[in-house]
């Protein structure tokens, strides 16, 4: 198929960016979206033009490194990661716009690459269980009801790609934080630090410049891991309880 691409080009963090148009003639529908961009870059390189910078690593939907706004949608028209989106979702003659994640907390580094360090800093602020190596009791010492283990797992599948932030009109990271609060809150191991965790993570969230949640649900709808919206209710509930307890 023939595809026209409009892509955000920006040389460095401090530079102004602009959309540029490129034409690709020979795109196969079996290609992933990123393989299509690989082909564009090969073409640009042959023509002496600098390739487009974009992030990816595992290319199988699990590392969370990739992430593009495709026609204004985080990760594009299918609810999956950009690397798992395939060109069979488009048709011959389509024009596709490709932009980086847009959020104050995710500054653009170059072209389509952004800095998502804010997500790591929120984990540093409490998204863990304090259990030094070597201190653990036998794994069967505390059984965990299957329903709790399953809900913890579901929330823990978050890949930290940032699509929730990019999709949210307020650029809130509440789905990301809620997923971690729910993952650890469902497990007995997460209880001792339950209050300090939620307070710490939420404070860091606000410090980083993420917006507030107004319950629109765009985050969950864009999430490639289909993290359910109820993790945000869990987050709010836990925060209220923690504040009430004076944490």
């Amino acid at each position, binding site marked *: 198929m023939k595809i026209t691409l409009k892509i955000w080009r920006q040389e460095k963090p401090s530079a102004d960016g602009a959309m540029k148009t490129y034409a690709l003639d020979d795109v196969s529908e*079996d290609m992933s979206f990123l393989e299509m961009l690989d082909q564009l870059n090969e073409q640009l390189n042959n023509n002496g033009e600098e390739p487009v910078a974009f992030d990816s690593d595992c290319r199988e939907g699990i590392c*969370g*490194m990739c992430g593009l706004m495709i026609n204004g949608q985080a990760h594009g028209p299918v609810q999956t990661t950009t690397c798992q989106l395939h060109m069979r979702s488009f048709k011959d003659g389509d024009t596709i716009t490709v932009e980086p994640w847009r959020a104050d907390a995710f500054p653009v580094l170059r072209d389509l690459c952004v800095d998502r*360090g804010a997500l*790591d800093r929120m984990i540093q602020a409490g998204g863990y269980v304090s259990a030094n190596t*070597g201190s*653990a009791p036998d794994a*069967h010492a505390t059984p965990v009801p299957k329903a709790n283990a399953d809900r913890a797992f579901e929330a823990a599948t978050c890949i930290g790609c940032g699509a929730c932030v990019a999709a949210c009109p307020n650029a809130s990271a509440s789905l990301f934080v809620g997923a971690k609060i729910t993952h650890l809150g469902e497990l007995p*191991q997460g209880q001792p630090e339950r209050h300090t965790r939620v307070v710490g993570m939420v404070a860091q969230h606000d410090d980083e410049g993420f917006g507030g949640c107004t319950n629109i649900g765009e985050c969950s709808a864009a999430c490639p891991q289909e993290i359910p919206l109820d993790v945000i209710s869990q987050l709010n509930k836990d925060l209220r309880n923690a504040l009430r307890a004076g944490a």
Partner: protein
Amino acid sequence: MTQQKTTDTTPGTGPEMTQTIDRPDTTDPGARPDLRPGSGDAAGYFLEGVPIRDGKAPSGPISERWGARQFDARLVNPANRRKLSVIIVGTGLAGASAAATMGEQGYAVKAFFYQDSPRRAHSIAAQGGINAAKNYKGDGDSVHRLFYDTVKGGDYRSRESNVYRLAEVSVNIIDQCVAQGVPFAREYGGLLDNRSFGGVQVSRTFYARGQTGQQLLIGAYQALERQVGAGTVATYSRHEMLELVVVDGRARGIVARDLVTGAIETHLADAVVLASGGYGNVFYLSTNALGSNVTATWRAHRKGALFGNPCYTQIHPTCIPVSGDHQSKLTLMSESLRNDGRIWVPKNTEDREKDPREIPEEDRDYYLERIYPSFGNLVPRDIASRAAKYQCDEGKGVGPGGLGVYLDFADAIKRLGRPAVVTKYGNLFDMYSRITGEDPYATPMRIYPAVHYVMGGLWVDYDLQSSIPGLFVTGEANFSDHGANRLGASALMQGLADGYFVLPNTIRDYLADGPFEKITEANPAVVAAQQDVEQRIAKLMSVNGTRSVDSYHKELGHIMWEYCGMERSEEGLKKAVGMIRELREDFWRNVRILGSADSLNQALEKAGRVVDFLELGELMCIDALNRRESCGGHFRAESQTEDGEALRDDAGYSYVAAWEWGGEAGMPILHKEDLVYEFVEMKQRSYK
């Protein structure tokens, strides 16, 4: 000519060569009286040096060895730990676990990784599970059985002491992960569930749906970030190590490039740990993450670290077949699928194009169940992969190019019901259908082997220390525990064993002599390392030829897959060495990298990695050429049984091939480490 000693004189550090050797220049025959021309198939391609021995190899009853080593390894007083700095390259399971643990213990740790977050390391992609000898199922498992299975699975080419230790600490790993909040799969009673993996007959694999690596890595990542918050660990994201700094024979730091600004930075420390993962991407197409590379370990190799068994590669039997030339990577379908899926090909070649659902039972050949009745679909990976290749070579393969076999869940869906299959394998099925556009619940999947893992890596002793004192290597980056073939669910086990439990206990013996003499960035060895990196980058940027980096990488991958892949022969390997040498020359004349070196430049990043793959590829072929036997994942056409199974030659090759860098113009130097089996009897493997 360099005359730097690789044998350290400090007691308790470094490998023990049977005699002191000096580091290369092998272009000058008089310089190294310890070397003689290599013999055998690879004669003319290598020199042979003195044998090597693991100077830390413990003795005594095997079950007491690790305990004894932990006791003997000197302690570092908690107040001194703050003054000791450690650089860890890599934040996969092996690196993040080590960084977190050493941070908890109070050392000053710096962790480097090329992605934007430590959580994105390639370990995140591991699907199936992690082994541990918990015997929670009461099915006869034990530390000794896991040890035995792993030695046998590795086709008797690993060290008994290391493997035993791995099996021993496996039980602690599960405890540690559960304490961190890793949500493993559980049964209705609330206890942990297990599944089986290839090459074993007990159920000892712990899992979290098809995302075990992700959950384990997030556990280690959170522990790491907790230490970042506590100030013991500093992380360096989007930083790539490009050189090792060796001062007075000890590893003292690294040179890294900040991938955003292009700045070349030197970081110094008391010890360096490489946890940089495997080099399967030398084949271009593999199941590894795109950025996985050999640069960290290869640069250390060029600085004197021996490289162990570079040719031992694992080809995984269940991957999604290649769909076209545009393909950038291959996707694994977890081996756990072989628990319930059945592998078959049509008996008649004319059925190849037929809808598989219309091929009647009697016209299907469930070849693994037929040839290996006791293990069936659960034979080890090397055997399953070769069996698939043979079927396709006979013209029975299905799908594009006839390079595929069926993996069929129809029986499992009938037996367990669709919901149970969804719970166990749902995300894998989804992935398959996204990539291929086919529905695996309705029609059998097509699979084909792909490069997946490397057993080879930097040579280390029992302490995980390389042949450069102060340089430690953990996880897939070292060569140590899997022999010639790794069993499923054992890489996660090894990465976490190394990082949480082994390294922190052995590195303290080295650090007990520190802090080492302060060195500055003005030290000549530091300046030289930094300049090497700057010059290499300047050279790459200045070629300004016509071909893209990717095109070279692809071509190298084709050569490696064709001649150093599932089946290797003397003729093919010799041809490959010649082809790689030509390709390397052409690369330096004709590669084109646009943009600048002082900004984010992904083509430049890739070029640096391909430079090192082009050298590694040649060494892999020479190692494979030298080893005229078949063992595990290394299959030499010249060495097979009558029915086509791998035929080992224990008298000739029961050794670790530890290669020394011979200089750009010289030949690599082989040091042999004999493998001795005291507790497991060496047998021809049989899974029939």
